[in-house]
C-alpha cells in the first residue's frame, strides 16, 4: 500500500508528480469550463467570434482608413489586424479568466486537495477553445480577400504554444495576487484594455520600430505579446494577394516588412521565459496557503 507522509514543506517535493497524477481532474475542470461557457449563452460560440470581429472592424477603419497606417507584407489591413487580434484576444481572455479562476473555485480549493495550478491552467484551455473558434473568422477573411497562406502557416501551432506560455506566466502571478488582494479583479480589465493599445494589434510593429529606432524598440519588445503577434503575422501575412497590383517596389517593401527583427524577438522571448518562471515560482509559493486565505 502506498504510504503518504504529510509534514511541513513536504508538498513541495512531490509537486510535479502530483501535477501529473491529477491530470484527469485538470481535464475535467477544463472541460467543465468550456461546456458551461458554451451552454450558458444563447449564441454560444458566436460570442467568441463577434468580439474580435467588431474590434477588428473598428481598428481597420480608424488605423487603416482614417490614420492611413501601412499594412504589412502587402496584406489587406483587415487581415493584418485580425492576425494580431487572434493571439491578443486569447492572451487577454486567458489573463482575465485565469486570474479569477481560483477565487471562483473557492469552494473546491477549501474542501479538497489538488495541485492548485490546474485551476488557472484549465481556464487557459477555455480561452484556447475560443481562439480556435475565432480562427474560423480569419479563414473567412482570407477567402474574402483571396489571400492564400504559404507554407509558413505550419508555424502557427508552435506559435500557439508560445502564446500559452506568454499568458501562463502573468496569468499565474495575477491569479495568486487576486486570491490575496481582490483589488486585482478591478485592475485586470483595465490592464487588458490598456495592453491592447500598447501591443502591436491595431498597427504593425514595423511602424513602431520605424518611429522609435532600434534601441527603444528593444524596450518596447519587453511586452511578451510583441513576439507572439509578430510571429503570427509572419506566419499568416506572407501571402499572395491575388487582386492587388504588384509593382516591384511594393514587393520589395513587402519583403522588407516581412523579415523578422531578431533582436526584438529575442528580448520578447526571453521575457516570456522569465515571466513564466516567475509565475510558477510565485504561484507555488502562495498556493500552500490558498485554502487559509481564500
Amino acid at each position: 500500500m502506498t504510504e503518504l507522509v504529510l509534514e511541513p514543506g513536504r508538498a513541495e517535493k512531490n509537486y510535479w508528480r502530483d501535477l501529473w497524477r491529477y491530470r484527469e481532474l485538470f481535464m475535467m475542470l477544463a472541460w467543465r469550463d468550456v461546456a458551461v461557457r458554451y451552454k450558458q449563452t444563447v449564441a454560444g460560440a458566436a460570442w467568441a467570434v463577434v468580439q474580435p470581429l467588431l474590434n477588428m472592424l473598428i481598428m481597420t477603419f480608424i488605423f487603416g482608413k482614417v490614420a492611413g497606417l501601412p499594412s504589412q507584407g502587402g496584406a489587406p489591413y483587415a487581415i493584418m489586424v485580425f492576425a494580431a487580434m487572434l493571439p491578443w484576444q486569447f492572451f487577454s481572455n486567458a489573463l482575465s479568466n485565469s486570474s479569477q479562476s481560483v477565487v471562483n473555485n473557492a469552494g473546491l480549493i477549501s474542501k479538497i486537495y489538488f495541485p492548485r495550478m490546474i485551476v488557472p491552467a484549465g481556464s487557459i484551455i477555455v480561452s484556447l477553445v475560443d481562439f480556435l473558434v475565432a480562427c474560423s473568422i480569419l479563414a473567412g477573411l482570407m477567402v474574402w480577400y483571396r489571400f492564400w497562406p504559404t507554407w509558413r502557416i505550419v508555424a502557427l501551432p508552435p506559435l500557439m504554444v508560445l502564446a500559452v506560455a506568454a499568458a501562463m506566466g502573468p496569468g499565474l502571478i495575477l491569479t495568486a495576487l487576486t486570491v490575496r488582494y481582490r483589488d486585482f479583479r478591478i485592475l485586470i480589465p483595465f490592464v487588458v484594455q490598456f495592453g491592447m493599445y500598447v501591443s502591436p494589434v491595431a498597427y504593425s510593429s514595423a511602424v513602431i520600430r520605424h518611429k522609435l529606432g532600434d534601441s527603444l524598440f528593444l524596450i518596447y519588445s519587453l511586452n511578451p505579446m510583441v513576439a507572439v503577434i509578430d510571429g503570427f503575422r509572419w506566419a499568416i501575412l506572407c501571402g499572395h494577394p491575388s487582386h492587388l497590383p504588384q509593382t516591384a517596389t511594393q514587393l520589395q517593401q513587402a519583403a522588407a516588412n516581412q523579415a523578422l527583427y531578431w533582436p526584438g524577438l529575442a528580448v520578447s522571448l526571453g521575457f516570456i521565459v522569465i515571466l513564466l518562471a516567475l509565475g510558477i515560482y510565485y504561484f507555488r509559493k502562495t498556493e500552500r496557503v490558498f485554502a487559509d486565505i481564500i
Partner: protein
Amino acid sequence: MSGSIITVENLSKRYTIQHQLNRNEGFRHVLQEKVTAPFRALFGKNGSNDHSANPQSAIRNPQLAAPKQSKGGSEDFWALKDVTFEVKQGDVVGIIGRNGAGKSTLLKILSRITEPTEGRVRLRGRVASLLEVGTGFHPELTGRENIFLNGSILGMSKAEIRKKFDEIVAFSEVEKFLDTPVKRYSSGMYVRLAFAVAAHLEPEILIVDEVLAVGDAEFQKKCLGKMQDVSQKQGRTVLFVSHSMSAISALCNRAILLKKGSIGVTGEPTEVVGAYLGDACISENGEFDLSKHPLRSKDSSPILKKMRLCNADGKPRSELFPDWVCYVELEYELKEPLRLPRVAIAIENFQGARLMTFASYFQDKKIPELSGQGKIRCLLGKLALGAGRYMLSVSIGDKQQGMLDSIDNAAWFNVNWNNNFKSGEPYYQVYGPILRDSEWEVLMK
C-alpha cells in the same frame, strides 16, 4: 504497528491572525505599507510590518485557542498543538469538541488542504472526503456530466466512474433526468445524485465532516448506513466529525475529544462523549446553564440561557420519578422581540431516538410576543417514562424568522423507580420507554 493506517505525531498548526488595524489585506494597504516603510524607518518610527508580506499572515476565520501576543499587531493561534494518535484499519473514529477546538483543522491537514506547521502524518492509503452535498456540482451541466465531474473531484478516475456509472445512476434514482441540467432538479434529486456519487467512492480512509447536518432525515439515515457499510463490510477506516453525540456513540468504535487544539480524552465513544458533555449536560440540582452550551447548533444565537427541570412543587430536580408531574423552565434573553414565538422541548433516549416533542405551536394556546429577558414554563404533565437515562433538547424560534436557537441533547436526566406508581414493580426503559397506565379485568373464569 502494522495495523495502524493513520499515524499522527506531534501535529501542530499555527495560524497568525491580524488585528483590526491590519486586517485589511487590500492591495492599497500593502502598497501603503511598502511605500511608507523607508520613510518610517528614516524617521525612526517602528518599521514596516513584515506580517503583511507573510503568506500565512491573513486568516479570515481564526478559530481558536489561547492567543499569544507577538510583535507587530498580530497574534499566533495554535489551532492544533502536539496532537498524537493512531488509527487502526477498520476503525470508525469519532472526533468531537467545541467549535474551534481544532476538529476541522485536523481534517483539513489529513485531507491535504492545508499543511501542518509542525509534526508529521503518515497515511497508508487513499484518502477521500465525503463533502457537503453537491460541492463541485455545476448547475448548468446535466446529471450525467455532473457524475463524471463530481466523481473526478472526489478522486475517482474516469475509468472507475465509467465502471460504476450504472450503479451510481440506479442508486440515485434519477435515470429519467440524466440529461437534464441539475439546476432543474428538485432538491431531493440533487441530494440523491450527489450522495450516489460519493457513496461509490472506494478510499481506504474516508473523512466525513458534518455532512449529516444537512439533508433530510432519510438522507442522514442513508449516510449513516453507508458509513457502517463502509467500515464493517469493507474494512475501511472512517474519521467522523459530528456534533451529534448519538451518531458518534452509535457509529464509532473509538472517539477523540479535542480541547483547544490538544487531545483531551481518547477511548470508548461513550466515555469520551461523557467526558465532553459531562459539565454542560449533567446537573446535580436540575438547573442547566445553556449560555455556553457545547452542543448549541452552529448558526444559533444564544437566546436560551438557563433551563430548570422541576417537579410539581416547582423545585428543580435532576432525578425524576415516572408519576411526577413535571415542568421545564426556560430563561431567555432576546435582542429583538419574537412576534410569533415557537418553543419546543423534546425528550430522547440515550440511543438518540426521539420519544416525544412538546411544542408550543402544537397547542391552541399560543405563546404571546416575547422580548427582553424572561422565563417560559412548560407543563409536561405526568412524565410516564420507564426508569433510565434520558436527554432533553430545546429550541426557540419565530414563525417568520425560523429557528433561532437550538440545543440538541442539552440536558441529561434520570428517571428513577419508586413504589408510588400503582404496583411496586419496577418498569425499566427496556420494556419500551413510555410507561402507560393499563387496566386489567377478568372477563371469563
